[in-house]
Each structure stands twice: as C-alpha cells, then as structure tokens.
C-alpha cells in the first residue's frame, strides 16, 4: 500500500518534470520551428558581411525562408563567402538579390532576399550574383563627411 502511494507521487513528479522540459523546449527554445524541412544550399559573395552570424535568418518580405549555414572567406577574391540553406518550400527566381539588413537599431543582422523576375528558379549549389553588403557605420559617416566637405564651406565654416 505504502509503495503504490509513493509510486503515484513519483509519477506526478516525473510528469511535472516532463511538462517543465516541454515548456522549456517548446515555449522558450521554440523547437517546433526548428527546421525539420529539407533545404537546398545557395551561396553568395559579399564585400562585407558586417556582424552577420551563422544561423542568422534569411527573410523575404519579413518571413524567414532560410538560415545562414556557413560563413567563410574567399582569399582569391577577398570577399566573404556565405552559404545559405533555403527552405525547400520556398523557391526564388535565379536573379534574386541579397542584402544584409539589420533588425532594429542595434538588432541582429539578417539577409533579405528580394525576388527577381527570371523564369528559372535557384537550383541547389547556385551562386547569387547580385548582393549588397552590410552598412558599416564608420564608412557611412566618412562618406557623409566627404560629401559635406565637397559641398564647400557653406555648411561647416563660420
């Protein structure tokens, strides 16, 4: 009798633990949206990837359609080589363009993909040729200063 009573309580304990674990994995780690779909790899070269990281999202119209799989450096062209794994459910035209964007002012960087108008779709292993680098704050500021200087002394000097 005593034993079966503790069995019940331990069963309850284990169930509570399982619920807590499920809560952690589903609600906080969002396991459901982990990519169980098959994907195809597409590569692209960027002049500057800024703070892009692996696993960063690839978004089209704000919807996640893939992830950054790998980032490496191509020392023949001195560019960053980014490999994206795109969700198989979403197909994009061959002449789609990639941009590195930032979510919010200080947020994570992600890749925005804009659909082109080619009739053929991207195939696994294709390289996207039209890319736009991340905006680096320093170069933006220096560009601004150069433009200001080129405008003449009207703005800055007293």
């Amino acid at each position, binding site marked *: 009798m005593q034993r079966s009573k503790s069995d019940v309580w*331990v069963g309850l304990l284990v169930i509570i633990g399982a619920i*807590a*674990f499920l809560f952690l994995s589903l609600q906080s780690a969002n396991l459901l949206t982990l990519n169980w779909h098959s994907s195809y790899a597409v590569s692209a070269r960027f002049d500057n990837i800024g703070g892009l990281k692996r696993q960063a999202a690839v978004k089209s119209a704000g919807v996640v359609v893939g992830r950054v799989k790998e980032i490496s450096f191509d020392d023949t062209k001195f560019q960053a080589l980014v490999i994206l794994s795109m969700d198989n459910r979403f197909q994009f035209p061959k002449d789609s363009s990639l941009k590195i964007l930032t979510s919010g002012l200080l947020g994570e960087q992600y890749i925005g993909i804009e659909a082109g108008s080619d009739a053929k779709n991207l195939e696994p292993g294709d390289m996207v040729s039209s890319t736009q680098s991340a905006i680096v704050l320093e170069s933006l500021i220096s560009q601004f200063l150069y433009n200001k200087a080129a405008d003449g002394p009207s703005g800055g000097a007293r």
Partner: protein
Amino acid sequence: MIRFLSNTGATLRLLLIAVGASFKLFVSLIKLFRPCMRRFNLVVEQMHFLGNYSLAIISISGLFVGFVLGLQGYYTLQKYGSESALGLLVALSLVRELGPVVCALLFAGRAGTSLTAEIGLMRAGEQLSAMEMMGVDPVARILAPRFWAGVFTMPILAAVFSAMGIVGGWVVGVVMIGIDAGSFWGQMQGGVDFFKDVLNGVLKSFIFGITVTFVALYQGFAAQPTPEGVSRSTTSTVVVASLFVLGLDFVLTALMFSL
C-alpha cells in the same frame, strides 16, 4: 619541527584516504546501476522522498528568482531601450546557469543534508554494521538506491526551476511592467537554442545531481559514529557540495559554451 612534519603527513594521509575511499564508493555505486534498476521500487521510494518533498521549495524559489531577474533585467535593459530582450535574458540565464546551479544548491540544502543525517545516524546506531553482519551489503541496499534516485531527480527539479523562473519573469515583465508579450516570447524563442542551451542545461543538472548526491552519501557513510560527527558531516555536506557545484559549473560552462 618533527611534530609539524608528522602533522602535515597525517593530514595528507587522511586526505588521500578520503579521496581513495570516496573514489571506491563512487565506482561501486556506478556498478550498482543495474541491480538498482532491477529493484526499482527502492529507487522510486527515494525519488519520492528526495523529489516530491523538494518540489515545493524548488518551484517557489524558481518563481522568486524569475521575479528578481525580471525586475533587475528590466532595470538594466531599459537604460539601453531594449526592454524587449528581457525574455531572452531571463530564459538564457535560467536555462544555462541559474536553473542547474541554484537548484543544485537548494537540493544540497534540502535533500543532501537529510541523506547525510539519515545515513550518519544509521552508522551511529550501528545499523549499517548490523546489515553487514546479516550479509546484506549496505552500499547496495541503502546507498545505491538513494544515489540513483538523486541522480534521476535532479534534472527534473532543475527543469521545473527553470520553467517556474521563466513564468516568474513573464509575470514581472509582461503582466506587471507591461512589456509586449509578443516581443518577450519572440526574442526568447529567437535566442534560446534547444541543443546548445536547453540540453546543455539538462546535462549540467545531471552532473550536479551526481555530485551533490554522492557528496551527501559519502559524508554520511564516512561520518564519525557520534552525534557530533553526524552534525559535522551534515554541515560539510552543504559546504563541500556547494563548492563542488560552483567549481564544476565553471569548468562545465567553459567546456560547453566556449566551443
């Protein structure tokens, strides 16, 4: 001079004996895994004792740790205008760090001490010697079920602790302060990785479960069979287990998250 040397030598010898004896006990407990599974009722009984009675303190402390994390995290994050990252902060710090560690410390205080006292009193009352006389191995009959029960219970408790903490952070952040619920959960889901964060946290709590339960059992088993000795062992269970947990935590974190 000679007295100093002989004292040092005696201390060193005692230390070595403790290390050797605890290692021997540890190996025999690991070996007793299969016999324990065969008599699982003993383990279940101990899980009831260790787990269910710790559940209240674990979940309430988890809730309060979550409250405090919510308040303190909000205070820091709102200086940078990124209060929406509160969910991520609460979830990551709980799942990776605070869940396993604080839970292990509480477990050492709540369950470890009672294990040490129980076994120390058995030792003092010569019940363990009596069992040996009857040809029953006290390690197999008394220690091993408690050990494996503690090892199984600890990850459950740590998961409950983390989940309650996240709920606490949600209560403070979303319900009381009024952060947008969507960004609270969304940032959390974007930043917490299942394999890197959640599973590593579970692994941590598993290792802490082994550590705390083993320290408690060894302290009880090696206690001086006097009232003083049992009380001293109980104290040192908390001290040694806490130190081991915190030290191991550093090592584990460095191993898991630097790679």
